[in-house]
């Protein structure tokens, strides 16, 4: 099954006028509406759009992986080498799945079976489609693991998914997808769950493999930076339709459709406030440490510590933003939780001049009002059983119990208006809002108490690009209006650059580099910072060893 010579005329996969409908509770909604595009041999096509645009539904339809009969195809055909997959028998479809067309998914943890070691996961596919067993299968598995850049693959054969890092898991997923030398690889947001540095490595790997094997790729993503880096052609999708398609360079240079222009213009913009050392300090940490004990032996004695945060000094002033950046596992969220006293820590933490390091639950309660948190996941951070007015008003009930129902309602409405939502929507439940609107609600919940300090824990990373930009603008406006101090935790350096005037780069719980944002971004002093910046802004992989795999 060596790749056939490329011929530009006959597309490998051709989707014609595809429509996908979902039936639920007697209602029918159309998720994909008349989508057509081709993928030629050796070509990388990117399907770009925001969540809910129908891009994943389109991709899953190719291998018929949607929940049937809830999903159905009122119209269209998917031709793979001239054969219509939509009308193929299940048995024929199974021969195509995992063999001619393979898929890699967004979440590498849940896509691998946690109970099977790596060798078995990959070996299963080899056995199924090629009948390889025993020594021959092992040889091929090693070859594949080597190809996807897993170091010392012999030692990794018996490893279980939980023993691998996120990047390694995604590499194993890719190895599984490559096992049968597919002609088409569908990658559904393969790097969204990964750190920027790992993302750059995976993209470089996919590009290399594509060139090596001459396979085609359908790349689904919402990240335009990735599209620019990897795709030959791009299809822009919104509301179930493809609104623009063309060669990547052309679309980026000269977008035609309004939606494409909107997408391209939606990178976080603007500049943070300038550092001003004369402003009063809001929160100050001296030698902050969070060590989790590792206990072992019969008596559970502490033998060692996981040093999640290991001696961090920081100062945050009113009206300023301190960005904390680093890869996952660097301890940045733990640092934020320690500063807000949501977990225990050692070292001095001064909030508005008061040392709060030893404060318990009761002592902290009056201070909570001036110290608020906005969490990452706008879906998880709002109770699904409470209407918005109760969610936002909950803090008022704790900190201003004297407020009458009418006054409280007025405050809630004002807070919603401040974050750009219609106050009348306060009677609704969270599930009626989109991700960006939910994050606005979470921000309103923090703002209604008029805090001095807000810890923002990756507030934009679960959102679509254009929504991210809006939320960043909103945060900046609120900061200017209320003289807020932000602790902005993120792995997304583009967002940090737009919001933070100072940056702390963290790794293994320690500060790698600390300084004004522009200096750190443009002229990093440390190798690690340099690698991080290259990966974030140019999606460039750096030599392994420099960063975690």
């Amino acid at each position, binding site marked *: 099954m060596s790749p056939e010579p490329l011929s530009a005329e006959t597309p490998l996969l051709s989707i014609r006028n595809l429509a996908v409908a979902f*039936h*639920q*509770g007697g209602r029918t*909604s159309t*998720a994909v509406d008349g989508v057509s595009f081709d993928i030629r041999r050796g070509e990388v096509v990117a399907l770009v759009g925001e*969540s*809910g645009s129908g891009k*994943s*539904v389109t991709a899953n339809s190719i291998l018929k992986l949607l929940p049937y009969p*809830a999903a159905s195809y009122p119209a269209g055909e998917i031709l793979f080498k001239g054969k219509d997959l939509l009308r193929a028998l299940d048995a024929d479809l199974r021969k195509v799945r995992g063999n001619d067309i393979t898929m890699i998914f967004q979440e590498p943890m849940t896509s691998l079976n946690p109970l099977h070691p790596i060798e078995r996961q990959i070996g299963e596919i080899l056995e199924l489609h090629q009948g390889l067993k025993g020594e021959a299968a092992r040889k091929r598995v090693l070859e594949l693991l080597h190809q996807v850049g897993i170091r010392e693959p012999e030692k990794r054969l018996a490893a279980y998914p939980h023993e691998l890092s996120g990047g390694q898991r995604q590499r194993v997923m890719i190895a599984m997808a490559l096992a049968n030398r597919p002609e088409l690889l569908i990658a559904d947001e393969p790097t969204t769950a990964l750190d920027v540095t790992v993302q750059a490595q995976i993209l470089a790997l996919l590009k290399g493999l594509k060139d090596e094997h001459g396979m085609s790729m359908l790349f689904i993503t919402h990240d335009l930076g990735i599209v620019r880096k990897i795709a030959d052609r791009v299809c822009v999708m919104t509301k179930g339709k493809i609104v623009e398609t063309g060669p990547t360079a052309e679309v980026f240079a000269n977008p035609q459709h309004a939606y494409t222009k909107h997408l391209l213009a939606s990178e976080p913009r603007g500049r943070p406030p300038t550092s001003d050392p004369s402003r009063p300090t809001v929160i100050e940490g001296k030698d902050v440490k969070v060590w989790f004990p590792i206990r072992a032996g019969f008596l559970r004695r502490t033998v060692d510590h996981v040093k999640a945060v290991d001696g961090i000094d920081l100062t945050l002033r009113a009206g300023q933003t301190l960005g904390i950046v680093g890869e996952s596992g660097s301890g940045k969220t733990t640092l934020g939780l320690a500063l*807000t006293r*949501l977990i225990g820590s050692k070292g001095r933490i001064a909030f508005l001049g008061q040392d709060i390091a030893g404060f318990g*639950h009761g002592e*902290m*309660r*009056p201070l*909570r*009002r001036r*110290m*608020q*948190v906005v*969490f*990452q*996941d706008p*879906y*998880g*951070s*709002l*109770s*699904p*059983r*409470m*209407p918005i*007015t*109760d969610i936002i008003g*909950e*803090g008022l009930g*704790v*900190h201003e119990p004297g407020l009458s129902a009418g006054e409280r309602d007025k405050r809630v409405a004002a807070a919603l208006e401040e974050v750009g939502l*219609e106050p*009348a*929507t*306060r*009677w*609704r*439940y969270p599930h*009626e*809002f*989109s*991700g960006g*609107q939910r994050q606005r609600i*979470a921000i309103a*919940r923090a703002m209604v*108490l008029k805090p001095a300090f807000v810890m923002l824990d990756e507030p934009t990373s679960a959102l679509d690009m254009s929504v991210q930009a809006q939320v960043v603008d909103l945060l900046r406006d609120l900061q200017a209006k209320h003289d807020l101090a932000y602790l902005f935790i993120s792995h997304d350096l583009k967002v940090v650059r737009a919001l933070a005037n100072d940056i702390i780069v963290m790794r293994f719980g320690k500060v790698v580099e600390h300084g004004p944002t522009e200096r750190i971004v443009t002229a990093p002093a440390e190798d690690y910072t340099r690698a991080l910046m290259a990966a974030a802004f140019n999606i460039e992989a750096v030599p392994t060893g420099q960063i975690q795999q």
Partner: protein
Amino acid sequence: MATTTALSPADASPVRRGLRSPVNQRRWQNFRANRRGYWSLWIFLVLFGLSLCAEFIANDRPLVASYKGEMLFPVVIDYPEEKFGGFLAQTDYRSDFIRDEINANGWMIWPPIRYSYGTVNSNIPHSAPTAPFWLMSKEERCSGYAGGAEDPNCVLGNLNWLGTDDQARDVMARMIYGFRISVLFGLALTIASAIVGVSAGAVQGYFGGWTDLLMQRFIEIWSSMPVLYILLIIAAILPPGFFVLLGIMLLFSWVGFVGVVRAEFLRARNFEYVNAARALGVGNATIMWRHLLPNAMVATLTFLPFILSGSITTLTSLDFLGFGMPPGSPSLGEMIAQGKSNLQAPWLGLTAFVVMSVMLSLLIFVGEATRDAFDPRKTFR
């Protein structure tokens, strides 16, 4: 995949909370979609409602009586017998003397069945247990009365619709009262153990650590005790009764809820909206009540009908063994025991069997429908 909900300029309609919240409305729709469970619930509610009015359906006192121009309500008020010229502290309206006295000076309206659960029928045609009246000829069924088939008292209300047990008590009346006490006992036990079990599970799951560890070990020891034997021993020491039995069984039945509630709290205490509430400074009790309990209630409510039927079965089996309710109380278990020792009187065993199986089946059907209604993944087509 999340779909973006476009918000129209919203109506300012006040929010629907509590039972009328959208989530609960959807659950009610799902519940109704399960026809079997829905109808089972109605049938059960009607039967239970009727049995709550048992005093007005099966009683040995008239509902209303007129005596010498005075309106009497014997079903709710105890009148001493001297009022009618007798000498007992409580009037026996079924005795020939009182009956004739009242009928001579007024009238009486009887409930459809003129027996309470403890009333002994002194006019049975032959030695107890006697068969349902419709299995006998008119002469035979009235042969216990002085006037034979022509006796004015040999009427439908005085006949034993489902026969009598071995102490000449009306089976129909005992069945109605027995059904009521079974369901009431089951409900009381279920609610009490839900309250104890949910609180214990909530505390364990929310605080975790040593609290969880110690309570979990305690529960393991506690639940490994041979419950039935302990019940038998305690029942032999304490005077048996409704509340004593309830208390004893509560000691062990709350454990069943702890597992699900604890697991639910353990899972949900790290939800971001719980962390968010903590960051707002909301107290532990409020977080548990407002944010975590609704999660755990799904598991608990799904469990309830099954616990209810389990409690009823336990009470019945204790009664069957003779360690349950005090002698003379109406009880389905005792009726089964009678059926076992009087195989020549199949109406005893059959009645108890039919009532038990109908009651338990209805509860299980309701339970199934509840479980489906609370399942967020369940779709009805």
